[in-house]
C-alpha cells in the first residue's frame, strides 16, 4: 500500500487531523525553499506538496502565481528539482508529493520524470491539468514504480468521473472544495462535503483530502471531520512572504491545531 495512504489511515484511526502543506520549489530561491519545506515538515504538516514552478499556472490564484513567477525569475530550472527534492527527503520522513502542471513533465519525459522522482525519494505526483483520460503514460509508469497518483474530484464532476478518479488515484484523492482556483476564501464552500461524499460513495479505500480556499485552523478541523485531510497552500506562502521562516512555522503550528 502507498505510504501516503498508510499515514492518512493511521491518523484517521488515531482521530488526528491531517494537514497537507503546499510550497513551491525554488521560492524564493532553491536553498530557501528547501529550508522552508523542511521547516513546514518539522512544524507539523503530515504531507508536503512540493510545487514545480510553471509559466502558465491556470489552477493557481495570485499568491501562488507571484511566488512561482519569482522562483522562475530567480533561476529555477527543472534540472535542479530532483536534487532539491532529495535534500528535503533526506532530512525529513514526511511523504513528499510533487504538484506539477503537465507540460514540464511531458518535456522532461514521463518515464524519466517518474524514475527521477522515485530516486529522489518523492512519493508521487499531483497533476492539476492532467485528467485520467489523458494520463495513459503516467498511469503506466506510476504503476510500475508504485508512485502515488493524485487526480482531482470537483463539485461539477459526474458520478462516472468520480468513479474513474477513485479507481485511478493512489495516495489520496484531491477533492476541490469549491469551483475556483487556489487562494484563501473566508467561507469554505459547502460543496466540499458533497464532493467528498460523492467520492466516498464509490466505496474507495483511497483517502480523500480537501483543498482550495483553506486558511484557518477551524477550516482544517472542519474539513477533517468529514474528509481524510486538509490541503493548504496560499496561506503558507503569504506567511513566508510576510514573516519569513518563523512566521511560516507559526502558521503551520496554528493550522495543525496548536495555537
Amino acid at each position, binding site marked *: 500500500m502507498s505510504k501516503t495512504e498508510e499515514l492518512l489511515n493511521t491518523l484517521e484511526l488515531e482521530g488526528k487531523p491531517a494537514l497537507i502543506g503546499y510550497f513551491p520549489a525554488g521560492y524564493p530561491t532553491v536553498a530557501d525553499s528547501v529550508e522552508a519545506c523542511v521547516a513546514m515538515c518539522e512544524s507539523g504538516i503530515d504531507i508536503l506538496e512540493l510545487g514545480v514552478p*510553471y*509559466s*502558465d*499556472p*491556470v*489552477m493557481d*490564484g*495570485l499568491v501562488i*502565481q*507571484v511566488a512561482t*513567477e519569482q522562483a*522562475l525569475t530567480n533561476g529555477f*530550472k*527543472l*534540472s535542479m528539482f530532483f536534487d532539491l527534492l532529495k535534500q528535503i527527503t533526506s532530512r525529513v520522513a514526511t511523504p513528499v508529493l510533487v504538484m506539477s502542471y*503537465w*507540460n*514540464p*513533465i*511531458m*518535456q*522532461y519525459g514521463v518515464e524519466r520524470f517518474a524514475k527521477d522522482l522515485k530516486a529522489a525519494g518523492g512519493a508521487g505526483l499531483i497533476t*492539476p*491539468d*492532467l*485528467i485520467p*483520460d*489523458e494520463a495513459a503514460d503516467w498511469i503506466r509508469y506510476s504503476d510500475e514504480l508504485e508512485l502515488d497518483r493524485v*487526480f*482531482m*474530484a*470537483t*463539485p*461539477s*464532476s*459526474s458520478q462516472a*468521473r468520480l468513479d474513474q*478518479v477513485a479507481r485511478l488515484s493512489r495516495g489520496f484523492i484531491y477533492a*476541490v472544495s469549491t*469551483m*475556483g*482556483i487556489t487562494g484563501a476564501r473566508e467561507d469554505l464552500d459547502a460543496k466540499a462535503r458533497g464532493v467528498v461524499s460523492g467520492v466516498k460513495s464509490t466505496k474507495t479505500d483511497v483517502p480523500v483530502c480537501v483543498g482550495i480556499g483553506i486558511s484557518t485552523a477551524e477550516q482544517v478541523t472542519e474539513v477533517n471531520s468529514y474528509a481524510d485531510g486538509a490541503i493548504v497552500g496560499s496561506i503558507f506562502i503569504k506567511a513566508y512572504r510576510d514573516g519569513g521562516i518563523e512566521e511560516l512555522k507559526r502558521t503551520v503550528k496554528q493550522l495543525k491545531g496548536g495555537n
Partner: protein
Amino acid sequence: MTEKTHLQDQNGPYFGEYGGRFVPESLIAALDQLEETYAKAKADPTFALELDELNKTYVGRPSIITEVPKFAALAGDIRVFLKREDLNHTGSHKINNVIGQALLAKRMGKKRIIAETGAGQHGVASATAAALFGLECVVYMGEVDTQRQALNVARMKLLGAEVVPVTTGSRTLKDAINEALRDWVANVDDTHYLLGTVAGPHPFPTIVRDFHSVIGREARQQMLDDYGFLPDVVTACVGGGSNAIGLFHSFLDDEEVALWGFEAAGEGMDTMRHAATLSKGKVGVLHGAKSYMLQDEDGQTIESHSISAGLDYPGVGPEHSWLKDLNRAQYFGISDDEAMQALKALSQTEGIIPAIETAHALAGVIKYGSTLAPGSTVLLNLSGRGDKDMETVGKYFGFLE
C-alpha cells in the same frame, strides 16, 4: 481497398496526436456540456437557420471577393483574390465564431460570457454579441495589449463590456487566456468562455473552426461561380489559427490546392523575438491542448513577439499542427517589417487598409508569389481591417510626426 478518409471530416478531440483536454477537472463538465449542446445544435435545423439569418442581416455575409491586380503585380505574374472578411460587422472574421458561440451560450442558459483578446478584435466581437443578445461580458486583455490597442478597449467599453487588464506573466494574449481560464474555473455554472481561436481544449478547436468554415465554404463557391476555377494557393495569416482554418477547411481535400500559412517572425526567425510557433516550436501542452508551442527545454512557455497583437501568441491550434505534420499545409515566417511594408503596399495599390495580422499573409504572397508558375492564382483571407492599427502604423511610418 479502404475508403479514403477526408481531412475535412476530422472533428476532434484529436487531430492526429494533437488536441485533447489538458485542463483541470473542474472544467470537464462544462466542456462536456458545450460539446453536447453543440452536437444538438448541429442536428437542429432551426439553429442553422438562426445562424444564417444573423450572418445575413447582422454580420453582412456573404463577404465579397475582390481581385487585386496591382497588388498582385508586386508578387510576380500571378492573380490574387481577397476574401473580404474585413468587411464583416466589427471589422474582422472574429464575428463568425462569436455569433455562433453566443447562440450556444444562450442554449446553455448562461448569462455571462468571458473572452480573451489580443488585438482586441475578438474582444470587440464578443462585446458586440453580448450587447446583441443581452449577455454580461468580461474581456481579459494583456496590459501590454490594452496599451497598443487602446481604441479597441474603448470600443469594448462603449459596447458595455468590462475590460480587465492582465498584469501577470508576459501581459499579452497568453496571459489573458490564463486569466480567462481561471475565471471560468471559478464561475463555470453561469459563464460561457467564448474562446476566440481554434486552440484550447476539445471541443473548442472544432467548434471555432466550424463557425469560421463559412469563410472557405463561401470563397470556394464564389471562385467556382465567379471565376470558374479553384485557386492554386489558399493562404492566410496564422496566430492561434482561426481565420486560416476557416478558409482552409473547405479546401483540405482539394489536393491540387496548396495551403500556405504565414506566422509572425517578429524581429526575425533567427532571433528569440518571434511568434513562429509552427516553424520554430516544439510539441507540448498549452491552454488545454497538445500542439506546437514556443517553449524552453523545461517546458516553460517562451514569450512570443510580434508587432501584431493578434499573432503574438506562443501556441497554435492543434489542427494546424496536424496539417503541418501531414505536409498538407506549409507554414512560413514573416517579419514585422515585411508585414508593415505589405500593409502599406495593399493600401497604396488597391485602397484597402488591412490589419497588421492580415498583412503577414499579404507579405507572404509578395515573398513567395514568384515561386509560382506564371498565371497562378492565390486566394488570401483578408481577415481584418487596419483601422485599429493606425497608431502603430502611424508611428512605424512616421505619419504622426
